[in-house]
Every structure is written in C-alpha cells, then in structure tokens.
C-alpha cells in the first residue's frame, strides 16, 4: 500500500472510531495525515518506521497539531517546537496520525479525568480503558493504529495496556528523552509505547531512544536495539514477588498469571518466589513524590505566556493566576497540586517529601537486591482487576490510586517493564507484567516476544 493510501485508510479508521463514540482522539485531520504521508514519501530513504501511523498522547508536543494535555488550561495551544521523540519518529518515517485523549495532565487511571470527556473501553463502552494513556491504548486495541505513544509516571501505559489487551512498554528511565513531554512527575515520567505486538512497541521505542543533549536525565547511551524472539527461555530465572500476589487477587487475574507462569516454564524458565517488602508502600510514596513534582511542574500554566487566560475579581495579577488556574485545571489536577504543595510546604517537607524519597530508595533497593541475587526478570499481574466500570472509582481518589498498586513501584525504581496480554476474564483482557533490571530493556523485550509466541492473548482463562 502506498503511504498516501495508508494515510487515507488510517483516516477512515480514526473517523470510524470517533463515530463509534470511543472519544479516544483529541486532534487529527485527513489533511494532516496526507501531509505526513507526503513528507514521508519525500524522504530520501525509507526509515525503520516508514509508513507506520502512530497516535500520540496529547501531552507530547507537536508543531502541527494542538497539545492540550486534555486540559482546558491548554485549550487551543499549538507548540512552537516538536518533542525530541516526535522529531525522531518523523525522521524514522512514521506518520504522526492523531493526538490521543488522556487523563488531564496524565493524572488518573481511567481516562475519566479528561476535560474533553472520558474514553470508552473498545470492548465495553461502560468500562474504562485505564489511564492515563487511555486514548492511545484504545486506539491500538481498536485496530486504528498499530502503535501509539503514551507516557508513564506511575503505570499510565502498562495499566491501560492491560485493560485494553495490548502491549504496553515502559523503558528504563532516561532511555527516551522527555524533551517535549509536558512534565508531570519529572523523576518518574517516561515516554512509553503501545503496540499490537511487542515488536511494534519495540520498534517505536527504539526509534525514539538514545541520549538527547536537550534532556539532562537521558542516559549517555546509544539507541536501544530491537531484539528478536528467542528459541526458548532456558536458563532464565524469573522471580514472582509474593507482595504482588495477594490472597484477594481477582480470580481472573490470578488465572491469567497461572497461565503465564505455565507458559514461562514451558519455555524453560525457572520460576521462584521472591520478596519486595517495600513495594507495599509504593502507592503512598508515589502519591507524595509525583504530586510534589507536579505542583512545581504545573506552576508554569499561569496565563501569562500561553494558553487561555481568565481574570477574576480584582483584576490584578493574582486574580489572573487564580482564575486561570482555578478554571483551567480540573478537580483531580487541582487536588494533586494542593497535595503536592502541602507536602513541600514549610514544616511538612521532612515528614512527607524527604520521607517518601527515602522509602523510594528502599523500594528500588529491593529490586536491585533481587536482581543481583540472580534473577533476570520478575513476573507480576499488571493490575489487580480487569477494566472497571466508568464512575466506579471517581468519588474516592484513593480507590482510583490503588488501581496502580502493581505498576507504581517499578516507576519509582525507574526500571523497564511491560504489560503483555495474557488472556481474558469474562471477555475482558488481563495483562501480565514483566519487569527487568535497569537498562535491560532489550532482554525484557526479547523474553516478552518469546512468551508472546505461545500465549493466546484472547483465550478465556476462567
């Protein structure tokens, strides 16, 4: 198929998804797709992603489409520069096809916190696709695009990948430049990839990866390679951290994990129970560190230099700040800014932020100890349950936070991890999470590709 035809077909699928009420896109146009196709066709040599249409979470800046972070505070904002990840994808021949809906500023686990309406689960519109990268996950799951970019701060790609039945890969912190990713929790944020297959996601990650002189937190390392599947997993030692298999785990999820463990054994891997005791504190740690960083990162949205402006009573600069931010940010974003401001404020820093940083170090230390003890990978469920119903957790913020109980610790430790479809429970996808040591992204991908080859992702597990 020619690139132009591919752009048209992608446009037709995007239009169909919109018409079906998925609400997974925030911006796209056929004209934009056609322009991308023409640009790719004019490239002197086809790149590794030539003609691959990619949806991009709307917190990654693009010069040719708006970037709103699904927030009123950036409504209509078009970035005057492209993110490094976008520049590299374009250079690899990919078509930037659409900007995907998300939880506002990536804060949420259900994509119900978008200022522009919630995203529907492609298999059941009454359910959520997970979040915060729910639009990207839904577009891949619905077959609209083969791959999509999301961003992870505390599991925002792995968790919706699990809910939607697609592959979601979070690279090691620092492998992919954050330059151009609207910051949420800078020490946690990772641009990450969704794919129908591990190889799709790996190709996208590889094209984006590598040192970026514009991001001081990227690793001074060459781009990641794209491995192939292995013949088997003989000699691979996989740890099963007992803290991630609680007694009250959803039976469908438990069954999918049994199935995944069996598949790993079948491939020759050795499975051994291990312990990550501090992971029990990952969610509270995360909900101190991430809001604190977010409170500072979101201070720039002040109505002075860009974005819509509101001016409240009094008409002075504070009236501008408070009205712009009060009206521009949705309730979840405001809650997190307030929590983040509180935990950093005078008298509370040591009790909350410093304490959380120390617990974070201990959480990371647990992983390091296990990996240094001779384990190559860890296997856990990605989520405690399959996709939940819309509205189920919106009234109680903490219950929503607990949807990330199995993904948070990995983000805090900066490790590479992915969610692989591992079967369905009553028709809803369930993901298995594989976790690798820092910078062992390629090992992780190779093992996942191997496992992917023998797991039937759509099979009912209960």
């Amino acid at each position, binding site marked *: 198929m020619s690139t132009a035809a591919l752009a048209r077909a992608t446009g037709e699928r995007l239009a169909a998804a919109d018409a079906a009420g998925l609400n997974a896109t925030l911006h796209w146009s056929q004209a934009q797709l056609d322009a991308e196709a023409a640009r790719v066709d004019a490239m002197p040599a086809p790149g590794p992603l030539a003609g691959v249409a990619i949806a991009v979470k709307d917190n990654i800046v693009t010069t040719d489409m708006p970037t709103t972070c699904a927030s009123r505070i950036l409504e209509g904002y078009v970035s005057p*520069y492209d993110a490094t990840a976008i520049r590299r994808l374009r250079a690899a021949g990919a078509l930037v096809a659409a900007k995907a809906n998300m939880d506002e500023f990536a804060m949420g686990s259900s994509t119900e916190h978008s200022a522009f309406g919630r995203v529907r689960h492609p298999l059941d519109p009454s359910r959520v696709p997970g979040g915060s990268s729910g639009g990207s996950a839904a577009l891949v799951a619905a077959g609209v695009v083969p791959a999509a970019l999301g961003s992870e701060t505390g599991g925002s790609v792995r968790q919706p990948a699990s809910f939607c039945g697609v592959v979601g890969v979070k690279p090691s912190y620092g492998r992919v430049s954050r330059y151009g990713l609207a910051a949420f929790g800078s020490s946690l944020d990772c641009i990450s990839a969704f794919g129908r297959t591990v190889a799709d996601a790996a190709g996208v990650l590889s094209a984006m990866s590598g040192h970026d002189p514009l991001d001081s937190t990227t690793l001074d390392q060459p781009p990641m390679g794209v491995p192939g599947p292995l013949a088997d997993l003989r000699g691979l030692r996989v740890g099963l951290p007992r803290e991630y298999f609680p007694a009250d785990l959803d039976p469908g999820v438990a069954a999918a994990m049994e199935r995944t463990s069996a598949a790993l054994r079948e491939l020759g891997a050795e499975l051994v129970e291990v312990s990550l005791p501090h992971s029990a504190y990952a969610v509270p740690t995360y909900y101190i560190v991430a809001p604190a960083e977010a409170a500072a990162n979101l201070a720039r949205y*002040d109505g002075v230099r860009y974005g819509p402006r509101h001016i409240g009573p009094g008409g002075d600069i504070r009236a501008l700040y408070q009205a712009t931010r009060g009206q521009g940010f949705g309730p979840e974003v405001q809650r997190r800014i307030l929590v983040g401001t509180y935990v950093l404020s005078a008298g509370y820093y040591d009790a909350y932020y410093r304490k959380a940083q120390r617990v974070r170090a201990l959480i990371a230390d647990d992983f390091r100890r296990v990996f240094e003890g001779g384990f190559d990978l860890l296997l856990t469920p990605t989520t405690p349950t399959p996709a939940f119903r819309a509205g189920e957790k919106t009234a109680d913020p903490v219950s929503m936070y607990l949807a990330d109980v199995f993904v948070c610790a990995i983000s805090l430790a900066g490790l590479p991890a992915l969610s692989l479809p591992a079967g369905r429970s009553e028709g809803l996808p369930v993901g298995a999470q594989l976790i690798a040591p820092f910078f062992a992204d390629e090992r992780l991908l190779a093992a996942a590709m191997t496992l992917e080859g023998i797991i039937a992702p759509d099979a009912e597990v209960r």
Partner: protein
Amino acid sequence: MAWETVIGLEVHVQLSTRTKMFCACRTTFGDPPNTNVCPTCLGLPGALPVPNAEAVRLGTRAALALGCTVHPVSVFARKNYFYPDLPKGYQISQFDRPLATGGRVAFESPERGRLEVGVTRLHLEEDAGKLIHDRFPGKTAVDLNRAGTPLAEIVSEPDMRTPADARAYLVTLRQILVYAGVSDCSMEQGSLRVDANISIRRPGAPGLGTKAEVKNLNSFANVERALEAERERQIGLVERGERVAQVTLLFNAGSGEVRPLRSKEESHDYRYFPDPDLPPLVLAPEWVADQRLALPELPDARRARFELAFGLPAYDARVLASEVALAEYYESVVAAGVEPKAAANWVMGDVMTSYNETGAFPVEASRLAALVTLVRDGVVSHQAAKRVYAELARRPDEAPGAAAERLGLLQVSDQGALAGWVDDVLSEHPAEVARYRGGETKLMGFFVGQVMKRSRGKADPKGVQPVLQEKLR
C-alpha cells in the same frame, strides 16, 4: 547609649557567558524584547534545562577567588513562587547543597582598619525576566530576554558593622570578581545587584536583632546611604520603645529614604526541593584544582607584591592593584626600566585620569617608559614631559624624543640661554629681588618657578639655580 549595627550582604553577579544558564539563548544586553528566548526560558510545556559548562566554570572560579571550598557534589533545587517575570513558576537555584561555602574577603575598612568578612556561600542560579510598569497603561510588560541568565549569588556573613564597611566590602568583592574574569560587575547594566540585611543590637549583646532586608540598591554609594538611613530608622524605632519588624524595604535614591515594600503575601514559603530535571552537579577534585591554578594573581596579592617588590607606599600599591588593566599597564612601564615610584606617579597621575575617562590607555606602556626615561636623563623637564605625554596621546606613531624636539621642549642647560631667561625674570620682579637681597632667601623657589615658566618648561631646573645665585649675589 550606643548601638552596634550588623550588616550582611547578598550579591548577585551575572556570569560572563555567551549563553544562558540552562538553554543556548544568547545573553546579549539590550536586544529587542522577547527575541533571545526559546522553549526552555519561556517555560513552554515539555521544555527542559541543561546547565551551561562555562557558567559552572566561572562560578567555580569566583568561589575559588573568594577562598571558598568548592563542593564535589552540589544540587540544583527549585525555588517555587509565582511572579510574571518567572516563566516556570520556580527559579532553578541551589539550596541546601550549594556550589561552594566558607570563603572570606579581606579589605581595608575606612573606620576599622583591615577587616575580613566571611563568605557564607556561593551558589549558581538563573535570573528572572524584566518587568516594565510604565509603558502600557494599566499593564505590566514582560520581557524574558534576561530570564535564565546565569548568576552567582554570593552571601556574606553578618560581619560588617558600618555602612562604610559594606561599601568597602563591595568595592573589594567587585575587584576580585573582575580580576577573576567571571563578571563585568556593572551595576548600571544590572550585572551586579545587592540586597542588604541589617539589624542593630547593643555592643557585645549575644545573638542578632531582627533584621530588615533592603533592596533596590543601584550603586555602591546608595548601599551606604540606604544602610545609614535604615540604621537610623531602626535606632529611632527602638529608642521610641517600638520593635523592629522583619521586613523588606526599598531604597528611594531620590529622597534618601527606605520604605517597606508591600509584602509579597505567602512568599516566604518557597518549598525548595531538588530539581528532578537535573542530576547533581559533580566536579572532579582535579578539575577544581586546575581552576584554582588558572586563577590570576588577585588584587590583595598584587598589592602586597607591589609594596614588597617595588617599595611602593601602601596607598600607591592599593590604587595600582585595584584593576587588572591598570596593574598590568603599571607593571609594563616598570618592566621597561622605569624606576617603580616614578612609574607609579605617572600611572596614578595623567595615565589614570585618561583611563578613568575613556577606559583605555592612550599611550602604550613602552612609549610612556621612554618618556619617563627622558625625564630621568634630563633631556626633558618633568613639566615639559606632561605636554609631550598629551602629544603622544594624539600621535600614536611618534617617539617621545621626536615629539619633544618637534615641540621645542628639549631641556636647555646652555648657560647663555639660561642667563637670558634669568635676566628677564629678575628685571620683571625688582621688588622680589630687593627682598631676596634683604635676606629672604626662600624666594629662590619663586625665581626658579618663574624661569621655568618663562622657558615654557625647557630650562633645566638643576642648571637654573646656580645662574640665579650668581646674578642675585
């Protein structure tokens, strides 16, 4: 009853880099507004900071020049507050782990003799943008060209006791920083800014009184004036039985008064935390040692050497060592064979006058040395040499001897010529001649002066006196 004043200073200096602290925008002064801006210094969504190696080098150099310990690990932190000149809603600074701590500045206090003031810390940070309040009615205009310019903040210990101490400290600090080549320290262009903390207490009292912070100090003279005004205000308050409140004050140079700044509500809780966009700044001890070796001789060392090696009086040595260019010029003149004190007199006289006016040296050191040598050898008189100097400044290609000759300023020791000028002078001043002959011999100086004047400086003063004595006998 006497009061003791306690003063500490916070000085911000702009480091002389080509680009900003965390992005590659130029730091040019005076460009059209919002033209030296990029995603990072505009605080656009997704933009990130990358530190400037040269700013780190200059900050390290400044710290070493001030005798600080430069730490192998320092940490950039976010200082959070909202202000329209602060694009990100936080300033990237350093907080609990600054680049350097524990230095000192030694100087001559006008009232208290030689003094040492401790330097608590030196840290790196970025500047804010500029706000213009008087250009658009009802609006404040924001120019972000300056936003992100690299600064070193130098915090002193509260070791100063008088406003004059504070001024002398600043003069010395500026000398050191300019010597070290880290900043041009121009208060006019805002590349050196001063905030002062001041409190009063009874002499010998333990602890410090409540301090006030004085801002908007745009010259060293105004620092002194503002601190004098604030000292009087605080003494007045306390002597009336009132208390000094912790407050930020602005100095009005026009009225000479300080007045409280309307408080920035809540601004004291900056919620500092390590900037997660920036891993720690790690400096290898060997690199720091290299920076120390690369420092030039600093003003205090140079002053001491001028006293010791050249036998200069303390005052001369201090003046000549005060600026790198002046000191270098002076040393070149001496190196060309001129006696050090004679060279000092010249450099501190005509040379410094023109340097202070133009910032340049109109006569290169070798030509000045040749001119001074002509004076020493009696070829031109000291008086005539000043005219030759002025001529050399106008004609960069002419040699001093040739200039003196062309101007007819070569010294005359010919007895006939001298006798002629002496006769003229004596006949013009019969009254003085009579008084001299009546015993008022101190009039000799007067007659010598008149002869020199009459000869337009050409007469050799050593030859004039014997002729005068002969004729006045």
